């Protein structure tokens, strides 16, 4: 034996007095690295319950559970609950989180003798690591989500102004596939869509290039998809989960893509809508989107459906209010013709109350659905508005849609800030006029779709905000009128609402125009209803009161569309029509 072998064990003792390399937990704790993938943290106010973390989790470690957050459009109210018995801390959940609410702390020590305690809901169940600044956060330069929208080809402003041709070209195959590929199928948009369309599924159909299935999905909830694919207010996109980090999915344009690819003559074969007669009759007053939507779903249930329409053609405001550069007639016809082809009886140029009494319709049918729209322009309520050069926006749009030149002249003022005002302004631009839009509040208060305002601006409509019309007087030229308007000061309403415009008498302006277009709103004409029916139907703020199935206080009368809902857009009317059809079917079925 060598001497070294004898004494070497004693060398160990010299180490006894050195600082150890190991930590004496729990006296000393060693923090995780700055970007350590430790225990989860979730900002539950930022989280929207989209379930993407659950979907991407490869270990099935996440459940979506109810918390004290309420479901609301854009937020399911559910929050992720982690089972740390299955989690492998791969951080895919953090990397995919579209709202950016989820990250990981650098805490890694958690001791408990209760296995169930390792299931917890970050942000809801109190944990000591929520305040840790360190931990894994998604690299902002790297994203699993595709944040940029596929480009849409559009006519240039100059080209667009030359005609009434459609401005938006629609997606081609590559653009549609690329856009559809951005959808994460989180389902959040469905609740926001007034028609509750199955958006993720029809986008999936595009991705899988099964457009016939896409068409079938569209028609389950919306028989106006060519129309809505163009002019829908697309509130679904406002709540698209991707919009928290990037551009929302172009849901509207993807819907249009499906319809654009399928010729109208193939609809019947694909949709296989059988309409087995049930012997019951339903009448619909108004062939707008609400009425025709109801007609479609009622006809599918086997009802004999008669539609009464005051105008020459069906479509309502879609035809007589929306200019063809946004919605070409042939596309509207694509929707409407298919509905009529199922055997809907149309009575055109039939004014209820004049050509046929409403009570006659009511007596001859098992139920009636009213969706007559808002077609009476509101007055400006200022002196001189009866001047012949003052016309309503609705009239300008109606004339244009009917093929008549509204002769607005070279210099036009549009009063109002809604979609009718924007459309009237843009139509006037196409007739060659210089257009000034006068609006009494601020730009951000305008009720028109932001897209319409943007496009009107691009088409060189001149916006004057906080401008209150005071009076209109004749000009020397009988083909012109003079408007006096004053600047408005925005004053706090004291109730937390939007500020009120107050006229400043010392800041008045005068301008002469060839045409002054009034577009400050519209209301419904209910004169075709007898006084007793009007009294029985409850009106609130000029809208009929209805329930979720469009039922009124009179059992066999259902009402929907702009005369009943607050939103007054096409897709809400279409949804109302669908719900009325369900309500009518329930009503008649129960009666039998």
């Amino acid at each position: 034996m060598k001497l070294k072998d004898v004494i070497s064990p004693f060398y160990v003792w010299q180490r006894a007095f050195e600082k150890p390399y190991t930590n004496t937990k729990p006296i000393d704790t060693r923090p995780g690295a700055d970007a350590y993938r430790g225990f989860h943290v979730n900002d539950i106010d930022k989280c929207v319950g989209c379930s993407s973390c659950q979907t991407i989790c490869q270990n099935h470690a996440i459940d979506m559970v109810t918390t004290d957050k309420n479901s609301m459009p854009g937020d399911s109210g559910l929050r992720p609950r982690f089972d740390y018995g299955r989690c492998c801390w791969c951080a895919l959940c953090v990397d995919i989180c579209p709202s950016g609410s989820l990250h990981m702390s650098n805490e890694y020590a958690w001791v408990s003798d209760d296995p169930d305690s390792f299931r917890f809901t970050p942000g809801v169940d109190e944990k000591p690591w929520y305040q840790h600044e360190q931990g894994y956060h998604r690299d902002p330069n790297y994203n699993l989500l595709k944040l940029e929208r596929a480009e849409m080809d559009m006519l240039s402003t100059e080209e667009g102004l030359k005609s009434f041709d459609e401005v938006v070209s629609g997606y081609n195959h590559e653009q549609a596939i690329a856009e559809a590929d951005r959808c994460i199928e989180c389902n959040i948009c469905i609740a926001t869509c007034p028609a509750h369309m199955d958006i993720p599924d029809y986008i999936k159909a595009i991705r899988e290039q099964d457009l016939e299935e896409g068409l079938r999905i569209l028609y389950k909830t919306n028989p106006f998809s060519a129309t809505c694919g163009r002019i829908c207010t697309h509130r679904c996109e406002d709540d698209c989960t991707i919009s928290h980090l990037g551009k929302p999915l172009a849901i509207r344009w993807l819907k249009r893509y499906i319809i654009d690819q399928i010729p109208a003559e193939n609809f019947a074969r694909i949709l296989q809508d059988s309409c087995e007669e049930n012997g019951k009759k339903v009448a619909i007053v108004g062939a707008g989107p609400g009425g025709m939507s109801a007609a479609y779903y009622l006809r599918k249930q086997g009802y004999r459906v008669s539609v009464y329409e005051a105008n020459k053609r069906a479509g309502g405001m879609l035809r007589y209010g929306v200019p063809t550069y946004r919605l070409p007639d042939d596309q509207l016809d694509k929707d409407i013709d298919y509905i009529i082809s199922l055997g809907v009886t149309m009575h055109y140029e039939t004014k209820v109350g004049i050509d046929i009494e409403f009570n006659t319709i009511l007596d001859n049918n098992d139920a009636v659905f009213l969706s007559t729209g808002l077609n009476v322009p509101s007055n400006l309520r200022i002196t001189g508005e009866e001047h012949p050069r003052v016309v309503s926006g609705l009239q300008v749009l109606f004339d244009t849609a009917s093929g008549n030149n509204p002769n607005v002249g070279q210099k036009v003022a549009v009063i109002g800030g809604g979609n009718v005002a924007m459309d009237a302004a843009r139509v006037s631009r196409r007739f060659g006029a210089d257009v000034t839009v006068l609006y009494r509040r601020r730009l951000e208060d305008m009720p028109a779709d932001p897209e319409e305002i943007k496009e009107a601006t691009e088409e060189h409509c001149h916006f004057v905000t906080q401008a209150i019309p005071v009076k209109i007087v004749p000009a020397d030229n009988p083909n012109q009128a003079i408007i006096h308007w004053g600047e408005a000061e925005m004053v706090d309403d004291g109730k937390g609402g939007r500020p009120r415009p107050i006229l400043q008498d010392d800041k008045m302006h005068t301008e002469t125009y060839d045409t002054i277009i009034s577009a400050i709103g519209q209301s419904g004409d209910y004169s075709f209803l007898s006084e007793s029916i009007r009294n029985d139907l409850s009106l609130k703020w000029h809208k009929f009161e209805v329930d979720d199935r469009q039922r009124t206080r009179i059992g066999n009368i259902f009402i929907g569309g702009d005369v009943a809902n607050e939103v007054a857009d096409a897709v809400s009317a279409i949804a109302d029509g669908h719900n009325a059809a369900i309500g009518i079917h329930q009503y008649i079925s129960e009666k039998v």
Partner: protein
Amino acid sequence: MIEALKQRLSEHFQLTNLTIKNAGLAFLWVEKHELEMLLRQLRDFEGYTHLSFIIASDHIEKNQFKLTYMLHNYDTKHDLGVHVDISRVNASMHSIHPLWAQAWTYQRELKEMYGIDFPESPRVDEDFCLEGWDDMPPMRRDFDTVKYCEEHFDDRDGRATEENRQTMKVNIYPERGE
């Protein structure tokens, strides 16, 4: 420094790319057949005497695996990664255990996790950490982890999840739509 290194190496090897991440880290791309010679050159003449690790990543879209050999130069404190793309079909790579003995451990792991073979690498066919594994190598991207989890592991009692679509329907629009 790294540019000069590239210059020297390029005289003997077909380097397809060079990425300098920072002063202490760079990556080279080399063809499969030149890897062993390049590593030998780096080890014996350029000071990269230490093999830190070998990893793979699955580029299924290109039908390739990317192998990365990470080397360290103790004198310059520089890390150099050498990337090699190999086919995913019958994936196989020369063993470098004659260069660094510890390489066989990494290669055994890669065989198990990705199915990349390293013929003649010691014990390469033995289980590494997935004892009794009889499925597709789990780090391949076409391995369905979720399906495997569902088939092999039960959830703890008491777990339950809600589907957000149905929750929103019930809470927001119970009487609307179908």
